[in-house]
């Protein structure tokens, strides 16, 4: 037996050696097409084709979280589908936002990946460090703000989805009280709470928004408790900026309405679900891969929204009035055409002072630094200290 195996091994050694160049090595690697198995075809085809581009993704959560990381992994799959055997993708999941991240990025660099995506804010510093030591590798960092000659950032305008959700919520609420379960009080999340409120006020000026912070991205029981508190406080339409579907399910259980976030969550609460504000990472991942394949990759910052197909409001509930659905479609069209901006003045802060003058449109710098609530949001921004 051993001799026979040895013989087979020796016989196909050439094939293995050649295939290794094609497939490389690494965990959870998913070649788009099975590698050549016989010696002859591999030998024949290997020189004809350039080696596929090796792309790696580092995720903060499990791919099965049904929200944030799930959406990123769908983007990775879209890259494979788009480029076939020109690329080989792999991913590492549950990479903590700590010193471990640097080790993972060094591993991925060492494995021959030429394009590496890191999909959470906390990877910024580790990635910057590893990028400095690997000039030949391109790094892409989601939701950060630091760049390098071989590291650029990308993000999605989730506030556009929040605004559209607000329009629907403003129409569907009976108590004129909305509730948001917030994760961590950073500008992105505060911006989404405000956008949700502004959207609702655009159709219903009486809107008040209550906010409960859980100080975590992902803790379903806590999200459930926070949602319960909001509903008990009179909110009848909820939104969340957390990573699980717990808020939607709590609304379903208590006979209220809510939205899906990051991914389409209809299935988690069919009766409560009003629509899902989703992020589609595929267009950006395909563009980035194309840039790298064509040798046109250069550093920069991308912030994509409805216009680029990165944000959408999907699976709107059947009982939403037609004119509201139409309004959402108009907003989408306006965002696509660049004629509509959710943050157009006059916008007034909680204290009644105008933060954005009439007809002024907020630029990205303004949007990136929002640390206040607009009028209509109750409570104080945590850590505001005043």
């Amino acid at each position: 037996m051993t001799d026979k195996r040895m013989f087979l091994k020796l016989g196909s050694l050439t094939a293995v050696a050649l295939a290794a160049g094609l497939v490389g090595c690494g965990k959870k690697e998913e070649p788009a097409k099975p590698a050549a198995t016989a010696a002859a075809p591999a030998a024949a085809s290997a020189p004809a084709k350039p080696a596929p581009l090796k792309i790696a993704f580092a995720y903060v959560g499990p791919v099965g979280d049904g929200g944030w990381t799930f959406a990123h992994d769908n983007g990775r799959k879209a890259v494979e589908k788009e480029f076939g055997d020109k690329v080989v993708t792999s991913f590492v999941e549950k990479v903590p936002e700590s010193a471990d991240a640097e080790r993972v990025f060094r591993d991925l660099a060492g494995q021959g990946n030429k394009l590496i995506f890191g999909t959470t804010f906390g990877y910024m510093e580790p990635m910057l460090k590893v990028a400095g030591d690997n000039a030949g590798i391109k790094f892409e960092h989601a939701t950060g703000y630091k760049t390098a000659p071989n590291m650029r950032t990308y993000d999605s305008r989730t506030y556009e989805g929040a605004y559209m959700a607000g329009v629907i919520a403003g129409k569907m609420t009976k108590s004129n009280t909305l509730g948001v379960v917030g994760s961590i009080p950073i500008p992105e999340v505060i911006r989404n709470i405000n956008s949700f409120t502004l959207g609702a006020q655009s159709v219903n000026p009486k809107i008040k928004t209550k906010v409960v912070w859980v100080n975590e991205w992902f803790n379903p029981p806590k999200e459930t408790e926070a949602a319960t508190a909001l509903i008990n406080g009179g909110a009848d339409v909820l939104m969340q900026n957390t990573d699980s579907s717990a808020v939607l399910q709590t609304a379903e259980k208590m006979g209220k309405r809510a939205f899906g976030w990051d991914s389409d969550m209809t299935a988690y609460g069919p009766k409560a679900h009003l629509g899902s504000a989703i992020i589609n990472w595929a267009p950006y991942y395909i563009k980035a891969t194309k840039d790298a394949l064509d040798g046109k990759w250069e550093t920069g910052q991308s912030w994509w929204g409805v216009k680029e197909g990165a944000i959408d409001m999907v699976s709107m509930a059947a009982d939403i009035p037609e004119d509201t659905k139409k309004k959402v479609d108009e907003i989408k069209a306006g965002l696509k055409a660049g004629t509509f901006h959710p943050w157009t003045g006059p916008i007034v802060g909680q204290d009644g002072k105008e933060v954005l003058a009439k007809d002024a449109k907020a630029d990205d710098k303004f949007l990136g630094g929002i640390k206040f609530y607009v009028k209509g949001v109750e409570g104080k921004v945590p850590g505001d200290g005043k």
Partner: protein
Amino acid sequence: MEAFALLVAATLNAGTVLAIAGLGLLINERAGIVNLGAEGMMLVAAIAGFATAVHTGNDWLAFAAGMGAGALLAAAFGGLVIWLNTNQYASGLALSLFGAGFSAFAGITYTQQKLGERAKFEIPGLADIPFIGPALFKHHPIVYLTVLGAIALAWFLYRSRGGLVLRAIGESPESAHALGYPVRRIRLAAVMAGGALCGLAGAYISVIYTPLWVEGMIAGKGWIALALTTFATWRPARVLLGAYLFGGVTMLQFHLQGEGVHIPSQWLSMLPYLATIVVLVLISRNATWIRVNMPASLGKPFFPGS
């Protein structure tokens, strides 16, 4: 007033999970075994219960599956610490870590699944009483069974022969052994009972409280239940009250936030844990309190031959 009734209702709900697990851990600690694996057992039970609920659509079968899973893990733990006399703390921690990893692995295909519509419960007649109805009489049967369970456990421990034997083993396994009681087997039974109740709590979370499965979803409730037994100085009634107190503090912080009360939410998130520390400090000021109530052999190995 209505808001207050709803707060009471939410408190009872949040406290029930802690109470079930805490009562379970109380049983094995009364027999002298500390099982730090509560979190792991609850996680495995949560996925076992959730998977059963998905496939059978029956919540009660799901609870049974959760209890079975918890008891099974507890039995493995019991075998290690009771017969092989491995260190209880290390083994318990190992069980916790194992449970977290194993439940994540077993649950991979269940993260996208959902359960059928959750049934609503209310006690006919009583549920319509203003204020009291919504606060007390619209809960899942498990909420009431937990209260009955605490009473039954108190009766068992202090009024029955079995309870006396259990406590005797916890105080002095050597004496119980000399009297001819099968110390190891009774301890195993106590550990399994504790595991089963932790399992019930885990399944209740994934099937009723937050009806979904995601890894790590118990999110520290097992550790709070462990703290509860000390907090309650190993008394069932106090475990129950402590559980509602913890649940109440958790729910209160969210309700205060919802009402726009200007306390930094980070402080509010700390409240349940601060409460634990304060109570632990208070009870440890009176050393006899702990010494009188704590099972004397807690956490110590027992060698029947010696």
